[in-house]
């Protein structure tokens, strides 16, 4: 075992190169622009036109069947895996049933033409434009998820979300859900056949005289249609591959194509018997889920664990060798990078970098508490290191028994490619899951979904990505007596404002009053979105891939999943804590300026030069005040912790739409998985008392505000460790930027691992790093063509720096760089 491990660690050596085949496949990505693909929208709409009057879930099943039966298939030259999401690599399917209004606007150039966006532009042909405008959009207009959400949204909630924007909920109003790990393991072990048998048995056993059971029939029939459709999809590849094989002159490639055809004929219908088959099986689950649900973050789970038995058997029998296993895994990594998703412009800003958040988890512990790291864990690291691509998002689980050797190799991957993998702490995450009702067996087997959201395998029906509650906005509203300076609206009135508050407690109460109000509407908006998804866009195939839906006879949104939570993505918590702590110190404790002076400075965005001190001088006082999270200073850290605890207490009291319908949970849960929304949501927040200018980015995740953590990385970690991380079961996000020169020696690597381990032993929850110097980033912004494969950690995900919007680029450049 140990001897074999060493053989695999070798793949991380700088001397190991990708095979020519893989290099070619990788080049396809960099030579192909993202584009809009009409395959899905065409076949989906075609089917919908024929099924009017039938139940929505059945229509969607039939529409998915039509898509999978007719969409263009391709197999790239030299590829070892089959499966495509669109007609060409990096093509983005269209999901008209969710929303068409923004597509129409953007096709007409409002605010940008899709192919002229400042970030994440997509090629779109004239023909496609005309087709969408003339034939697709008119059919769907007024009948989409977004329309349903609009009609369901209470007026006060609309004002809170869309006018004051105290919580940003738009992206889930125009997109699908996603955010889960389908049960790949079941399909690998039992095949679609096994799932189909269970579904058929359930159907056969139904007493149709019982209305409750009668209701289940449509769902189960829809499941049957989609399961069969997926088998058809695989068989279409088999046909295509057989044709390709017979036309192929190169004997080696001919043999490969023949083997691929054989595999696609067998799986996913039947259980996988080899490592290779198991890997291919993953894709035949993942791709249909994506085509059905329009969600991102369809994650892969603990790939190094569930593929391992197949790997060991094949290696031991000699059917597989290390080199071949590495190539097959490279192909999986590259396949994931081909996928693309088109979002509306606002959400493109929040999710910039064209990420699909397809997280893949390695490491951690086994059910019995043993170190789970195996050869495939090292091979996974090697894939990410050698390919240097942004997808899949690679997660490394750490627990008290994880070896330093593994951690060292993992941080060396970051050093090489700049940002992946991210690290997650079992010692906090597992208790956080137990705390909200997960069984120990399911919690210990968690993997990451999307950015930082812990989830069990094949047991949760999505819904981590709710809206972005904007804590910085609430701090601004508290200072202003509840009145929003931007819109003039007062939704949650307060008795007085900062100039009349007698002490810090009154300010804090004002803040929590705003929190209570907007949290409530965040929940209302979240539930409205879920109701609409349940009515407009039920997902029979995904439901079949999530435990208990079939046995319960319920689609996910009806309460089919074993576990079900709704997770908000809190943004700007640290901006709020810094602002409140700074007001406490500067105005109430040290009395360096008065509340009136502060309010005037904030109202004028620190631009008034005629006051004494001037606006800019006040800004400097606020900026330099030792009252910022990230310096191991108990006061701001304590305020941040208080806010987080308060959030957790209050958010978890709210029920989601599945409460009491079967799943364990059924409540909202907090997280700080902000993606890049801190740039978008910062745009509507005025000047804040931490010295931040109006409209600029607020804080992401739980990370410190840039340039305010001045005592080095250990103090930063100490601050982080003081937060009630265990009360954030939806996940924490914590970014640290490190100077490349800090980790260019073995000693630097050792200290880096020590820093992560120290932070994790002190109960930090998650850590991710950017190892790119500010100078490089500035240079890359200036000369994008020279830096096409420069990867940076945007938030809970990584993206190509040159693809990002200028605002986001600037924000990343500004984050404090730590010398290790």
């Amino acid at each position, binding site marked *: 075992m140990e001897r074999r491990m060493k053989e695999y660690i070798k793949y991380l050596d700088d001397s190991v190169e990708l095979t020519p085949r893989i290099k070619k496949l990788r080049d396809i990505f960099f030579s192909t622009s993202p584009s809009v693909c009409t395959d899905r929208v065409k076949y989906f709409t075609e089917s919908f036109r024929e099924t009017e009057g039938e139940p929505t879930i059945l229509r969607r099943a039939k529409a998915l069947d039509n898509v999978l039966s007719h969409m263009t298939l391709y197999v790239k030259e030299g590829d070892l895996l089959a499966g495509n999401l669109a007609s060409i690599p990096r093509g983005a399917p269209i999901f008209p049933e969710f929303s068409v209004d923004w597509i129409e606007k953007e096709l007409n150039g409002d605010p940008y033409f899709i192919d002229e966006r400042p970030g994440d532009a997509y090629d779109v042909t004239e023909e496609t434009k005309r087709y969408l405008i003339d034939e697709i959009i008119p059919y769907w207009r007024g009948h989409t998820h977004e329309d349903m959400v609009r009609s369901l949204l209470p007026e006060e909630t609309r004002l809170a979300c869309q006018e004051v924007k105290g919580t940003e909920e738009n992206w889930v109003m125009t997109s699908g859900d996603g955010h889960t790990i389908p049960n790949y393991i079941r399909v690998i072990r039992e095949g679609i056949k096994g799932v189909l048998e269970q579904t058929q048995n359930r159907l056969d056993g139904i007493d149709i005289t019982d209305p409750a059971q009668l209701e289940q029939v449509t769902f189960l029939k829809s499941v049957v249609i989609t399961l069969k459709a997926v088998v058809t999809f695989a068989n279409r590849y088999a046909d295509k591959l057989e044709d390709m094989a017979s036309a192929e002159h190169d004997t080696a490639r001919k043999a490969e194509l023949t083997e691929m055809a054989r595999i696609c004929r067998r799986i996913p219908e039947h259980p996988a018997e080899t490592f290779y088959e198991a890997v291919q099986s993953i894709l035949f689950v993942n791709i249909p889920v994506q085509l059905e649900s329009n969600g991102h973050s369809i994650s892969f789970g603990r790939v190094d664990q569930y593929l391992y038995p197949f790997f060991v058997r094949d290696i031991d029998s000699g059917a597989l060798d290390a080199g071949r296993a590495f190539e097959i895994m490279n192909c999986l990594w590259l396949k994931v990078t081909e996928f693309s998703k088109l979002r509306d412009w606002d959400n493109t800003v929040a999710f910039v970098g064209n990420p699909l958040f397809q997280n893949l988890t390695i490491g951690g512990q086994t059910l019995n508490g043993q170190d789970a790291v195996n050869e495939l864990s090292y091979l996974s690291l090697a894939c990410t290191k050698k390919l240097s691509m942004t997808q899949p998002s690679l997660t490394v689980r750490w627990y008290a028994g994880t070896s330093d050797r593994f951690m060292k190799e993992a941080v060396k991957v970051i050093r090489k490619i700049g940002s992946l993998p991210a690290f997650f702490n079992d010692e906090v995450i597992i208790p956080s899951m137990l705390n909200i009702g997960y069984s120990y067996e399911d919690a210990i087997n968690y993997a990451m979904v999307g950015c930082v959201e812990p989830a069990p395998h094949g047991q949760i029906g999505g819904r981590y990505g709710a809206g972005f509650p904007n804590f910085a906005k609430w701090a601004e509203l508290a200072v202003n007596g509840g009145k929003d300076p931007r819109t003039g609206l007062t939704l949650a009135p307060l008795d007085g404002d900062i100039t009349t508050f007698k002490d810090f407690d009154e300010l804090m109460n004002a803040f929590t009053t705003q929190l209570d109000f907007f949290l409530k509407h965040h929940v209302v908006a979240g539930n409205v979105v879920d109701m609409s998804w349940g009515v407009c866009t039920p997902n029979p195939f995904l439901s079949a891939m999530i435990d208990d839906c079939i046995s319960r006879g319920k689609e996910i949104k009806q309460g089919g999943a074993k576990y079900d939570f709704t997770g908000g993505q809190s943004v700007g918590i640290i901006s709020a804590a810094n602002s409140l702590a700074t007001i406490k110190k500067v105005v109430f404790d040290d009395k360096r300026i008065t509340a009136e002076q502060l309010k005037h400075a904030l109202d004028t965005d620190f631009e008034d030069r005629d006051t004494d001190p001037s606006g800019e001088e006040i800004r*400097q006082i606020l900026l330099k005040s030792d009252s910022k999270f990230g310096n191991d200073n108990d006061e701001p850290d304590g305020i941040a912790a208080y806010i987080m605890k308060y959030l957790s207490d209050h958010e978890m009291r709210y029920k989601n739409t599945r409460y009491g319908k079967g799943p364990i949970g059924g409540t909202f849960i907090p997280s700080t998985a902000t993606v890049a929304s801190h740039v978008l949501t910062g745009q509507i927040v005025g000047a804040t008392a931490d010295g931040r200018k109006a409209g600029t980015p607020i804080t992401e995740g739980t990370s410190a505000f840039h340039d305010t953590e001045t005592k080095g990385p250990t*103090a930063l970690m*100490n601050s982080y460790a003081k937060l009630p991380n265990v009360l954030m079961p939806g996940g924490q996000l914590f970014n640290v930027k490190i100077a490349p020169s800090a980790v260019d020696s073995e000693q*630097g690597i050792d*200290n880096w691992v*020590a*820093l992560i381990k*120290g932070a994790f032993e*002190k109960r930090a929850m998650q850590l991710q790093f950017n190892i790119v110097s500010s100078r490089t980033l500035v240079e890359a912004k200036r000369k994008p063509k020279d830096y096409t494969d420069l990867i940076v950690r945007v938030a809970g995900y990584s993206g190509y720096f040159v693809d990002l919007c200028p605002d986001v680029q600037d924000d990343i450049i500004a984050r404090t760089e730590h010398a290790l």
Partner: protein
Amino acid sequence: MFFDNKEEYDTTGVVFNIEQYHVNDGSGIRTNVFLKGCNLWCQWCCNPESQSLQLQVAVHRNLCVKCGTCRSGVCPRDAITADDDGFPSIDGSKCVACGACVASCLQDAMELYGKTMNVNEAIEEVVKDAKFFAMSGGGLTIGGGEPCVQAGYAAALAKAARRRHINVAVETAGAVPFERLWSVAEHADQILFDVKYTDPEKFRTISDAPLDQVKGNLRGLASKGKDITMRCPIVPGLNDDDGHIGRLIEWARELGIENIDVLPFHQLGKYKYDSLGMDYTLSGLKDLDKSIANGIRDVMVEKGLNATVGG
């Protein structure tokens, strides 16, 4: 409680800085406690605020806007006047370093160097990073100034750290009687021993103590089996000659010291001389070229030493 120890509360000293996450002053991740007061007067010193044992108020002229706030009755001893350029000038004979002017400055242009802390207060700061020390093989580094100027305090601090199972490094120039040095060093796991000059005449320009005492102390510590790293500031024109480098190597080999750090001269401390109103004689000197520093290291490595640039 186990760590409660009367000595920790009763022993006070003057600390001018506590910095977390030092990675070049001993093994692993370390917190440095810098003690005020030095018995040497090296002209290249990059921490001039470390030299005096007294608390000091500095005026950073680059930040000062001459608003006059600090002169408008803020000082309880009336020690601040304006100098010819309009910057605050502090009368050292009146100033008691109470910090009132520092607190009043809106520009953060005034800074108080030095804080009187008992050992417990200092060690409480240090233990904050204990987890990171444990993970990295790091610990506390007591530096200065010259820690042996406040030997009682330094020793008590080292003992307090060890009581908490924290590794201790002491950085010293060793220009004190051996008994005094040993009173601190006996509680240290690692000694960072600064060797500035190996020429007795030159050494006399920065110290009252004879060079023989320094070398004797180094030998003494080595003979007691202490883990020693020689730390050698290299200043262009002063001690970058081959003779000095050769003698450093001789010393190390003779005393069986394997680790040696080349510390290249830099100008980062220059502004602090201005702020403290102190003369700085090396302002025209260039930083030691990196290639020269690397060259010196390479010579040392060739001679079998474990040499680094910067530690």
